[in-house]
């Protein structure tokens, strides 16, 4: 069953004199209970897409439906059944954790008690601070509160706009575990993130760039599409190494990834000759073959 359907959605914004295309011809479907990731850098159009799907904004062209309801015609129905967590913390900072929750619960004509089983896992972590004002919470706690508020009415589709931006590594990991748990409740989750490493935690991801979806696939499918052998290379002077490699005609691409540079060759070279081939171009201390990550695929797609 399809929970979210987006059909050739287009959105433009008028900037001074020029027109900025935020979304061009976006198409995708998300099935019920899926954890779907929108991966892309800032400005890719993720938030605009979310705002259209949560009925806060009208698309210029195309149609979209959430839970079988049209985002324009049946927006009232959609508002009853989606949970939206905007990228910026948008709860009342001067109300306490408890007050925020009961406020949003009441707006949806429900209560914390009614849906306690759903938010329990998350709410328990912030419960010790329930008398604290939301503004005084730490970043990770704020995210959890926002997620609780978005879940309080047992939505069938949950939209999370960059929920882990600005959150520490541990909280991020916890957050994704929570999302995995939520899937058990048959909630469709659409999450956007600029972090490529989080893509592998989704069931399927859409790689977005400049208002376009470059590829939609499972994380595994995406990395399998990376056909060229990928090599991780290290040297004494990493910056100089990168510049030399990028200048070389033998090398197709070279991007810095942490302690290594990820390198592909223009023409296929037998694995055994790679080290010697590289040594001809620049001094390298370590060379190893690695499987491609989502980020490698993203970089590759961006080049095309």
């Amino acid at each position, binding site marked *: 069953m399809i929970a979210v359907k987006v059909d050739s959605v287009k959105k433009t914004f008028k900037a001074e004199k020029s027109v900025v295309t935020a979304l061009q011809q976006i198409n995708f479907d998300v099935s019920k209970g899926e954890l779907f990731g929108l991966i892309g850098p800032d400005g890719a159009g993720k938030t605009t897409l979310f705002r259209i799907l949560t009925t806060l904004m009208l698309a210029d062209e195309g149609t979209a439906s959430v839970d079988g309801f049209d985002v324009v015609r049946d927006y009232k129905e959609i*508002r009853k059944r*989606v949970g939206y967590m905007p990228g910026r913390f*948008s709860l009342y900072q001067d109300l306490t954790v408890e007050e925020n929750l009961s406020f949003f619960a009441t*707006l949806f*004509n429900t209560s914390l008690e009614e849906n306690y089983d759903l938010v329990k896992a998350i709410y328990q972590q912030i419960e010790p601070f329930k008398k604290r004002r939301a503004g005084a919470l730490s970043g990770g706690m704020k995210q959890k509160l926002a997620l609780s508020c978005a879940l309080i009415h047992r939505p069938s589709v949950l939209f999370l706009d960059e929920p882990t931006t600005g959150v520490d590594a541990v909280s991020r990991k916890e957050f994704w575990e929570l999302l995995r748990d939520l899937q058990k409740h048959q909630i469709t989750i659409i999450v956007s993130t600029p972090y490529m490493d989080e893509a592998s935690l989704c069931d399927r991801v859409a790689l977005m760039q400049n208002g376009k979806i470059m590829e939609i696939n499972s994380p595994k499918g995406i990395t399998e599409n990376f056909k060229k052998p990928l090599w991780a290379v290290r040297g004494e002077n990493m910056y100089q190494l990168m510049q030399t490699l990028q200048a070389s005609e033998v090398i197709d691409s070279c991007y810095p990834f942490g302690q290594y540079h990820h390198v592909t060759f223009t023409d296929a070279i037998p694995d055994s000759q790679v080290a010697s081939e590289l040594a001809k171009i620049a001094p390298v201390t370590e060379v190893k073959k690695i499987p491609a990550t989502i980020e490698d695929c993203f970089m590759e797609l961006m080049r095309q």
Partner: protein
Amino acid sequence: MRILRILLEKEFRQIFRDPAILRIIFMMPMIQLLVLPMAADYEIKNVNVAVVDLDHSTYSIQLVNKVKASGYFNLVDYNESFEKSLEYVEHDQADIVLQIPASFEKDLVREDKATLFMALNAINGVKANLGGAYLRSIINDFNREVRLDWVQLPRVNPQPTFQISSINWFNPLMNYKIFMVPGILVVLVTMVGSFLTALNIVKEKEVGTIEQINVTPIHKYQFILGKLIPFWVLGLTTLSIGLTLEWIFYGIVPVGNLSTIYIFAAVYLLGVLGLGLLISTYAQTQQQAMLISFFLIMIFILLGGLYTSIESMPVWAQVFTKFNPVSYFIEVIRMVVLKGSTLYDIRFHLLAAAAFAVVLNSWAIVNYKKRS
């Protein structure tokens, strides 16, 4: 109902948790009502006069003494040079130069008439005008005394003259405070009602909380009522505080019925809140809302009849005041406080206030969108 209740609960919680808002609501009326009326004084006192006496006669000295004794004037200098006196004006130390010519007494006695010269510093038009008028009336008075001294008036006055005596209705002592303080209170109530509402909603826009509300299934009217009711209550609270302060510090007790003021205020506030709502639908940031409010309050005050009477404005400005809700309330509160007008007397004002409420709120509701 449950939704409206939680919206109100939330709004009041936020208001009472924000010390700045509380301070504005309670301190603003205190300061404005207690300090401003002291300064916003129509009466002109301490007009500085420099006298150029070229005569030095008994009469000229009598005249100068009379001016001094009136209590309105300070004698800055008494000299023989107009240039020197004008210098005082140039340095803003004198407002009026009164020149008594050399032959003042001689002319008065011989030719039955004498001339005096008055130069007014017109930079402050009001002061010059009123000061000049005071001085003229003192001189006239002096003139009459002189004539009485000289001539034995016949029993029947050969020329018919009018004697005018006046009585000030509604404000016998012409106490400007009774007149000003209620007017200032109106401006205050207006500010609390409209601008706090506008800022409050725009703040939700800025912080992003309005988005979170917009994705919920609540209705537009619930959201708007949830915003209007708290500030309606706050507006009436400010009015009550203001009326109490007026009574305690100025002894102003409305001649008319207090309920007349409250009934009008209740309707009037709806319009004012609608204005706040309207501003908030146009402004994207609190800064914008602030500037629009500032612009409007200037117009409201200057074209509201608070300081200058509407009747003496040019016709176009008078037309303009018809579209200024503040002018209606200022008139009403003065009518009730000073004259004791009843609901029947202010029925047209009430109608106008209701019209403002309907128009401004409808406009705001049409313009308020839950989506962009």
